[in-house]
Each structure stands twice: as structure tokens, then as C-alpha cells.
């Protein structure tokens, strides 16, 4: 059965996770120390969603991918110079804060409104993609709320795989406890997919693809609508990074079993 999709990927930008990130409580609430200094990347979970969207679109001709982002415009443009080389898409840009310490319902409202305004978007073929988790300080609920605002009732989170069945239904693998998957069958779009890591590697940079994407990205950035998010009654009581401990030791020519044994001993303390 031939079926094509209109896939909208919701993707924020976040500070490069390779940097040293230090949460602080500033005058205007929680923030990251020296956040302005940090380079940004597309949220890694959302990036996986983008790669999966591109794969699905490639496998089903007639499909189209949009990437929608509410981020500071200048930072978003910088990030796009890398992301545009990874997969074909059309950008929908909203100019606003990407700090993560925002009300996810408010962010979702802005995203949903912008999605509804995408010219030519066929809601009957709509797959709303995004990250199941986020590397931002978002509450992880934004995607679900966007789906609700758009009236999409079939929502799946922790998705690792989506395949099209011969009858046009979607076969979806969602992560559950114990490293297992729950297999669901969805009659078809519209649906929301909050992606886990999927199974696709990060695509290599394709400069020619970047050039092609840029034809629509630059105008989208220029017409990016400013979105002011009010903090409202939202209050953050505490922010902290997960505790971590690191010890480095360089070894050579040590069998993997021995390294594994040492790691287990170290974890057990």
C-alpha cells in the first residue's frame, strides 16, 4: 500500500552536552552558568527523531519533513549550519528562549499554533515527531501537549522503531522496563511519536544537502516570529546535575573481560 506522510519534528536546541554544564539560580531564576558562552546543538533526542523522519520520508515517496524549533534565532541559525547537512527538511522557526526553564504548556501552545499555520500541511497524514527525553531542562512533556493541542490522540513515547505494515497501519516499538519493547499497532496518522534513540547512526555531513536545505532555512529564519514566554506562576525550587564520579586510568592490551571485571568491582565499591 502506498502511503506518504507529513512529518513535523519538534526540536529545541540545547547547550552542547560535551561542555561543562553547571546549573545555578540566578536573579531571574534557574540557568546554566555561562550559558551564553556555550555552543548549541540540536537536542540529541530530537535529532534522532529528525533522522528517523528523514528515513521514513525517504522510504515513502511523497512524504515531507518539517523541523519546527522555538529557539533564539542567531543560535538556531548557527545550529542549522550543521543540522542542514544531515537530512532534508523545511524549517519553521520561532524566535524565543530555549533555556528549558520555561512552562512546557506555553512552549507547546506556540509550537502547536505554528504547526497549524504550516501551509499545505495535511493533518490526516501528520506524524508529529520529537524527543521522548530532552537534554534541555524541559519537563519532557512539551511534545505530548503539542499533540493534545493538535487533537492527536494516538501518542507513543520512548519509540525506537516505526514501520509501515502492508495495510497502512504503523507498527511501533516503545521502550518499556527491562530493556524490552512494547509493540503497538496504530491504524495510521495522525500520531505523536516521542523518540528514544532509535537505531540510526548520526548521518555524515552532506554539504550539497545543506546547500539545498539552506534555500528554505534562510527565509524561515528571517521571518521567524518572536515568541515571548511569560514565566507566569512557574517556580523552580531546586536545580542540580545528576551526581557523577569519574576516575580515569589508561590501560593498554588489557582484555575486555578484565576491564569489565574491574568496572563491576568499582561500581560495587
Amino acid at each position: 500500500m502506498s502511503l506518504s506522510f507529513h512529518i513535523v519534528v519538534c526540536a529545541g536546541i540545547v547547550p552542547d552536552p560535551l561542555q561543562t554544564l553547571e546549573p545555578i539560580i540566578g536573579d531571574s531564576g534557574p540557568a546554566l552558568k555561562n550559558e551564553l558562552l556555550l555552543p548549541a546543538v540540536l537536542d540529541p533526542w530530537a535529532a534522532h527523531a529528525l533522522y528517523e523522519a528523514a528515513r521514513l520520508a525517504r522510504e515513502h515517496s511523497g512524504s515531507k519533513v518539517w523541523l519546527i524549533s522555538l529557539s533564539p534565532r542567531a543560535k538556531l541559525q548557527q545550529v542549522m549550519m550543521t543540522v542542514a547537512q544531515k537530512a532534508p527538511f523545511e524549517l519553521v522557526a520561532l524566535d524565543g528562549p530555549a533555556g528549558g526553564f520555561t512552562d512546557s504548556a506555553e512552549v507547546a501552545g506556540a509550537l502547536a499554533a505554528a504547526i497549524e499555520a504550516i501551509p499545505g500541511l495535511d493533518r490526516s497524514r501528520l506524524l508529529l515527531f520529537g524527543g521522548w527525553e530532552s537534554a534541555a531542562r524541559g519537563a519532557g512533556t512539551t511534545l505530548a501537549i503539542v499533540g493534545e493541542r493538535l487533537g492527536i490522540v494516538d501518542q507513543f513515547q520512548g519509540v525506537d522503531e516505526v514501520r509501515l505494515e502492508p495495510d497502512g497501519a504503523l507498527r511501533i516499538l516503545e521502550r518499556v522496563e527491562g530493556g524490552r519493547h512494547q509493540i503497538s499497532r496504530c491504524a495510521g496518522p495522525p500520531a505523536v511519536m516521542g523518540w528514544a534513540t532509535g537505531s540510526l547512526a548520526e548521518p555524515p555531513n552532506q554539504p550539497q544537502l545543506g546547500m539545498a536545505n539552506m534555500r528554505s532555512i534562510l527565509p524561515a529564519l528571517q521571518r521567524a516570529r518572536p515568541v515571548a514566554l511569560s514565566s507566569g506562576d512557574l517556580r523552580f525550587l531546586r536545580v542540580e546535575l545528576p551526581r557523577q564520579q569519574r576516575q580515569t586510568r589508561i590501560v593498554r592490551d588489557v582484555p575486555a573481560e578484565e576491564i569489565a571485571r574491574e568496572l563491576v568491582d568499582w561500581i560495587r565499591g
Partner: protein
Amino acid sequence: MSEPALPRPVLETDIVCVGFGPAAGGFLTTLARRQTDPSRPPLESRAAPGLPLQVLCYERADDIGFGVSGAVTRARAIRASFPDLDPAEIPMAAAVRREKLVYLLDPIGASRRPPALRLADRVIRAFRFALPFEHDALEIPWLPPFLEKKDGLVLSIAQFNQWVGQQLLMTGMVQIWPGTPVADIVVEDGAVVGVRLLDQGVDRLGKPTAAYQPGMEVRAALTVAADGPVGAVGRKLDQAFGTPEGFDNREWAIGMKFVVELPGRAQLETGTVIHTIGYPEPEIFGFLYVHPERVASVGIFVPSWFANPARTAYRYLQHYIQHPYLWRHLEGGRLRSWGAKSIRESGRRGEPWLVGNGYARIGEGSASTNVLTNSGIDEAWATGVMLAEAVIELLEQDKPFTRENLKAAYVARRRASWVEEEARIAEKARDGFRRGFLTGLLGVALAGLTRGRLRVPGRPHRPMASLEDYFRDRIPTGEMARIREECARQGRALHDALMERAGWPPVAFDGRLLVSHQDALLVGGKVQAPPGVADHVVFLYPYLCETCGTRLCVEICSGEAIRPRPEGAPGFEREKCVHCGACVWNCPQENVVLEAGAGGLHSAEN
């Protein structure tokens, strides 16, 4: 090796620029200003008629803000481009407030000081009550004018690049593509007609795999090489077109620095600049610059004429920051970031052909760095501006980018510029270092104070000593052989063992500022090495490596990415490589090549 029959994609554009640093920043900013000038119609594209001039810039690193460099700069050219520049707009930038030149004495007795310097040290200590002497250091009450950076800026070059890049991208007049290494130039009929991007989907030796994706050929009327001191494109241009008569590019230094969060008690004013000489070895110069919000850059330059074949910037830097004069400010601080880069210090002697048919060079790869004033960023920016002005002039006059036209428009501008005037003063300033540290300092002072009219004769390049010769007075030959054998067996570099045997105390790691070299690779950005591309450090003839007595590439490697192996060429782990290029100019046999490579340090603060 035959490539799979995949067509190489081709793209036509007007100008392709390789590398995004200060030189490209100056070039693209000037071009973009012209294109957005409301009083004039934008220059039109010939590659895409009807559209504005198409300008593409390809940067090897994964982000335009991952540069590694100094920096304190007088910022003359930068301020000329941004007359209303407010340092507060650029993270980590500050106006220079006070400068000091400090002579550091050796507090532990391990430094290899010549007899005259040891005598000077004794005299200084004897008269310390009458001198500005504190914490084993003499604050020299006078800063030579040629070293002054007054009215200048303390910068993080990564943040500066990011600031410039964001403004450029917002104009829509140029495209800057990070994570896109340029592998080669495309030459037809004696002219550069564009560049070829790096092939992907290959193994570490460059052999195509099932995922092979040939690098795009980007054809342009003008190729601008701005890929720095060790860039692949600059090297390919030299290979294709040769170098001018008398070209001598053997003077280098490795610059390595820490970005440090200062402890609460540190009394260093933002904008403070401290230049140091004398320690950890006389040949190694150092610096400390204070950024806003209690952050400092502290680092050293290890020059090519330093004779120690086991020179290691990282270890020396750890001893440097522990000098009492600096440690009183730094102790208890935290390492935020770290980085290293090669500095091309040959000055005008190392100037390659600046232009040719279809190409021009700007920035450090065009020998713009001034070794007398220790300044490179401002000069690089200025060369970019000059090229852009030349390009605009030629396009407005509808003239092609031939060698003659570029010479008349760009090279003539450079020759008439302050960059050239100061480069001439600096040209022979360091020649005295061939005869020793004090003679070298005298030469620098003479050249600087007489504007190049007087100098100490000689050439600074000094042949490398053997390990046995260099350490003869400290390590008996038999023991040296044992150390060599032991390090080879353990697969590690010699420098730690040799330095400790020569009197340098072990570094007591505190897990904050004093961390192992490998841990530093994980601080403040970490090194990335994407799969699917070939190794960028290539040992041309492994048999030459087998006969090499010093393996200086192993000792100097800024990331410990090059390690000794019992046979053949040293091993290379690109997951640790910061792309500093020190292995290239430290190889006495010129057997190491740095090809275009992806990844590297994700450092946003250097």
C-alpha cells in the same frame, strides 16, 4: 586505489573560503558589509546569475566557535571593522587595563639556565630588597612599547569567532559551514578553480567502504585559503605552486593554555595582562590574561628553537602555573577548558605566494603573525579585510581573479599596510636566539626599540640535540638507555620520566586544576573524532620513524594522541587529537603530514 564509481558532486559558487578564524572573519565581514550596504546594489553572482554574490566558507571544526588561540590583541583592525565595539557584547572579552612583564626565577632548581642567567638570578636575589621582587619573580618596571597591548582586548578567540559568525550568518550574505573539512584544491591549467571536500565513508587509511561518499567539488572563481598555520589547503597550494625564493618556514611554537576559574581570593583585575619570561625554561615564554567574571587564560609558548627533544608543553605548563608568582592567584582554581595550537613564527621569511590565478591567502597561513609583538589575531583580521577590499574592487571593475589582478589589488594593499611595516621590523628580531637565551632577548629588544634597524645577526633555527646530548649533564648515558627501554615497554612518552630524573618534581594532581593530561582532554569541550573519515595524521614512511632517535612527535603531542610503538611508525589515536599540528613541524625528517580532518576539541572558551 580505485574509488567506487560514484559521481563526485559538483557545486558552482563565486567565492569559496577555507577555514573560519579571524582572517576569514575580517574577509567575510567586509564582504557582507558591502553586500548589505543600502547605498549600493549588491555585487551579483556569476555562478548563479540574478542572485547576490555567492560566498561559501568551510570550517573543519564541528562548530565555528571551537577555535583555539590566545589571546590579547591590540585589536586595531578589529576596531576598525567595529568602531563602536563594546567588549561586553562578546563573552569573555575585556579591555586591556594593565600590563606587566615579569621575569620568573626558578624556585625549584630544575630549569636549565645558562651560566649568565644563573648569575643574573643570584644578583637579583641578592638585591631583592631593592628590586620589585616578590614570589621568586622580578616585575620589570618597563614594558617595551612593541609588546604593549594598550587599548587592546583580552579575548577568547572561540567566543569572538562565534560572535562574528552569528552576525555574518544573520546577514544572509555568506554561508559558513562547520564540520566540513576541505581536503584539496582543484587545479586546472595552472589556476585554482575550487576545492574538494573530504571524502566520507572511508576507513582510517582512506579506503572506501560501503558507505563511501565522495567529497563535493566546490568550483569557484576565487579560492581563499584561511586555514591557519597547518591547514591542508595551504600545504597543497605550496605543493602545487612552490614557494618564493628564500622561503623558510622552520620557526614555530606550540602554544598551550588553560582557561581557569580563579579562586575567590585571587586579586586579579579584569583586563590584566602578564607576560612572563624565564620559567619553566628560559626558552619558554608565558602569559596570563584575565577575562571578566574571574576567569583567566594562562599558558606558555614552546618554540621550535628550544633544544630539548623531549619537550612537552602540557608538563611544562603544569610547572609554569605552579610558579609562586602565578600560583598565589591560581591555587584552588578550577580548570574550565584547555587547548593547544601551532603558531607559525617564521614571519616574512615564511611568507608563501600570497596569490595566484584563482586563489589568495590570508591570515596565519600567509605568514601574518608578528613574532616581535607576539600578535597574530589582529594581523590576520587585517589581511582578511584587505583581501575583501581587493575582491570588491576587482568585482566592481569586472576584472577576473588572476594572479596579476590579485597582486595589484591585494598584495599591494598588504605591502602598504601596517601589517607589512611591522612584519619587516620583526623579520630578524629573533635571530639572536640561535646564540642563546640572553642574546636572543637582546636581539628582540634591539629590533623592537630601533624599529628593526639593529639586530643580533644569525638565524634562530637551531638543530635539535639528541636526548643523550641534551641531558648529558643530568642523566648518564646508561641510565638514559634504561629509561628509553622502560618507556618503550610501557608504550609511553619519555618526557615525564626524563623531566623527573632531571629534577622536576612530580605533579601532585588536585583533580581541579592539576589533572592528568588524559583528564584534560575531557574538560571543557572534549575531543571528538567522527567515524567514516581517514586519519588526518599520516606518517609517510614508517621505516624513517624506525630510525628516528627522538620521536619528537610523541613527546610534543598536545593530546597524547601519538604513542610509541615497538615497530614502524608511532601509533595515532585520533580520538585524542586536538589538531594542533605540532607533530608536523616537530618531525626532524618531515615525515608527518597533517591532512584535512574532522572533529577535534569542542572547546568553546579557548
